[in-house]
């Protein structure tokens, strides 16, 4: 069983986000880390390969500036190798362009399944995994909250508005997993040391034989939303609940 996992590297979400005044897109320079949302896909892949009795986990990523620190984290968790596509031409790439790039990167190694997060922490389009599936001509199951494999069939509990559906799908397939689907491991010291010598293949757009990449959407303006004013704040001294009751009365809710 070989699995390709999409891993996005993003600026530390703890640092406040900022917007580049010129391109009006999110700033993504500086040090990048593995998107937390993707640690679940990596863990899932490691567990599934393990259960299947062996195989390879290949990470695929697209990031500016040849950044690899997020990929090293995933390699330290136990992935086999990484393919990174890094090219100034991809600056400001939209989801479809990113999907085209990743689909090409995925095809460089044999795979039975592609795993991705349901949505990235900084882009959160939530469309990319299914775009990859369509590009590869594969079935997809998005928003998986439970995943198991039996032979060449993957079984998924897929979130719905009202609950969840049991879905079965023949492999190869693309599956996007939600946060909480598995508990991601922390890289061990041994893992971190081993990751230093694992291969990261760095490619440019030209290496992928992609015909067209064009930025087709444009940000016109960024402005502050109507700010919501904070109201009164009380330190509870045992009578906090009375303030709430009074507020509810004012709203005629009691």
């Amino acid at each position, binding site marked *: 069983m070989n699995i390709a996992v999409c891993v996005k590297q993003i600026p530390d979400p703890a640092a406040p986000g900022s917007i580049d005044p010129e391109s009006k897109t999110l700033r993504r320079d500086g040090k990048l880390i593995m998107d937390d949302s993707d640690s679940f896909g990596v863990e899932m892949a490691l567990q599934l390969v393990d259960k299947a009795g062996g195989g390879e986990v290949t990470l695929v990523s697209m990031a500016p500036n040849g950044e690899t620190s997020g990929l090293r984290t995933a390699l330290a968790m136990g992935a086999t190798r990484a393919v990174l596509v890094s090219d100034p031409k991809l600056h400001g790439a939209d989801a479809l362009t990113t999907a085209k790039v990743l689909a090409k990167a995925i095809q460089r190694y044999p795979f039975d399944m592609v795993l991705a997060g349901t949505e990235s922490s900084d882009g959160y389009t939530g469309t990319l995994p299914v*775009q990859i599936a369509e590009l590869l001509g594969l079935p997809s199951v998005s928003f998986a909250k439970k995943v198991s494999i039996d032979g060449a069939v993957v079984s998924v509990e897929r979130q719905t508005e*009202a*609950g*969840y559906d049991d879905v079965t799908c023949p492999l190869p397939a693309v599956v996007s997993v939600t946060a909480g689907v598995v508990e991601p491991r922390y890289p061990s010291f041994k893992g971190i040391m081993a990751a230093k010598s694992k291969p990261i293949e760095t490619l440019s757009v030209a290496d992928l034989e992609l015909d067209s990449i064009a930025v*087709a*959407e*444009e940000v016109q303006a960024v402005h502050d*939303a109507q700010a919501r004013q904070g109201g009164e704040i009380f330190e509870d001294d045992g009578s906090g609940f009375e303030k*709430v009751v009074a507020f509810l009365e004012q709203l005629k*809710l009691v």
Partner: protein
Amino acid sequence: MGVRTVWVLAEVTDGVVSLTTAELISQASTLGDRVECFSFNVDPSAIASTLGSYGAHKIWSVGELGGRLAGPVVAHAMASVAVNEGRPGAVLVGQTYDGRDILARLSVKWDLPVLTNVVNVTGELPDLVSEHAIFGGEKIVQAHFTHSSTGLFAIRAKSFEIRDHQAVEPEIVNVPMSEEVVADQAKITRSHVEERVGPKLDEAAVVVSGGRGLGQAENYQMIEELAKLLHGAPGASRAIVDAGWVPYAYQVGQTGKTVKPSLYLAVGISGATQHMVGMKAAKNIIAINKDKEAPIFQIADLGIVGDAHKVVPQLIDALRARG
């Protein structure tokens, strides 16, 4: 067809047209001359008058999917209709699971980008401008497509008002279903509905949500009790959904439900941007949190800095005493 036509994905639960669908049709009517819906897993004649009352001129019915996932089947239906009729000026879908899957596949078929997390679309075809809330709704980004082809938009719930339209009698056309192809081999074998008590979360006038500050799963009972006393719906932050305390259907926020109640009461919720984006539009917000620096207080009309385990039981007792 033509560039002044807008396609809207019509989604239905238990035979009832979703509010988001009504919102999308209402707004679509202002963007062009003609609104056409795509429906699936429903008898189109049963929803025709409802869709018509918001302004839909036509329903392309994909029919019963028989367990196939909507993404590949409906995207295929849209692409095949466009082959004969031409592409519309815009396609609007709700930011739902099926909505995103359909749009993702259509964007590849048409080689066109998608704009997601849209909270507004204005202008007139072919010149539309969309708005997106970022950083938890602190800033609004305005964007438009530089191509002059179909605009593909996934739109968050409650972005538009539902407006009654001069009733139209929509024409119904069945779209022949695609032969099964590799891309739609995924099959639903069983659907599970996670029962909720009380009003629907995204329609309730009062929402009481709990977060990690509740400490442990059992304490969520307080939230349910309080919601019941206020005739509201219980909700949750993602932290406690991921922890398995409550089902996903309770989640409020970016990946959960968008709520717009007249009162939102947040208990033990810090106010992460991804949570706030789903509840910030509430008319009134009350927050109970023991940390006075919690970001939720910045948007609360009334903030109580205190221990949920003390304040909430007192509040419940006081409300019960009033009967």
